[in-house]
């Protein structure tokens, strides 16, 4: 197994873990973290697949990943700012339909 394939598979795993967290966790900070983990997974997979071909490493996926990192950072910052305002306004860091849910996830589900 080449290291590039290993990176791509690790990226796939991170994406799956992030999706799981995004769907099942109620706390919005966890959701934002989950989206970041998904984005890291996609980046890792892009860079990994770009390095899998024979010969030179493809620079185009690397440039796309740099762009993607910047977009992720700005989206995260905007999401966190919105989340702070929401928590301040409603008193709970969740969406309205998740108001009743257990935010500490004590069962480790």
């Amino acid at each position, binding site marked *: 197994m080449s290291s590039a394939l290993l990176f791509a598979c690790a990226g796939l795993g991170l994406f799956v873990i992030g999706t*799981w967290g995004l769907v099942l966790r109620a706390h919005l900070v966890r959701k934002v973290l989950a989206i970041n983990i998904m984005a890291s997974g996609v980046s890792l997979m892009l860079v990994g697949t770009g390095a899998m071909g024979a010969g030179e490493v493809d620079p*185009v996926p690397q440039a796309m990943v*740099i762009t993607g990192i910047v977009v992720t950072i700005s989206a995260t910052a905007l999401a966190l700012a919105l989340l702070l305002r929401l928590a301040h306004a409603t008193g709970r860091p969740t969406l309205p339909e998740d108001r009743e849910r257990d935010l500490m996830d004590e*069962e480790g589900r």
Partner: protein
Amino acid sequence: MKTGRGNGEPGIFLRAALVLLLAAAMVGVGLALLAPPVGIGLGAAVEANLASSGVGNSVTAVLLNFRGYDTLLEIAVLTVALVGVWALGPAPRIEESDASPILLAMNGVLIPLVPVICGYLLWVGATLPGGAFQAGAVLAAAGVLFILSGQRPHVPLPGRSMRWIAIVGLAAFLCVAVGVMNGERRFLEYPPGLAGMLMLLVESAATLSIAVILAGLFIGGRPEGEP
């Protein structure tokens, strides 16, 4: 859905469906990764045109020249995100605690060094890994360290100049992109002789903007008064 896990907790069906979906995605993408590649990639095409791009680093050439659109829109996304965060209200005040002596000593060494590192990263981006985003991120980190350090001069955030510097990167990029247009050349198609210089100009403006935007996103609101 009532499941015995508490009100509104995701039910067993949702979890099972999610497991199936994610397993299918993993198997599908995994098989695609293991399959022989269908395309040859763009590495050779970039390598062939690198000489005409004005820089020696292929990633910088892709970012600023071959895929200039992406980078232009990326800076636009950053600027719009900053506008969004600032539109939500004034920056919250950071409650200061006593800074640790390690942070203060580090700040004394790091913050004066940062402009040098930033300039180096910006300049070296033409031939080696580096470039506007990396340089801007380092500069923004200096700003964040300054805001976080407990012992700083009590100066208000320069809101007016922050607004101008935040848009200078997008403005310079757009001016260059439109300015190179004439009869034959299209939007963002640099003239071959001037490409390197124009890209350095765009990157310098973008570095300043990225630094101010990232620091502005960190403070989390409109800069009014002290952070």
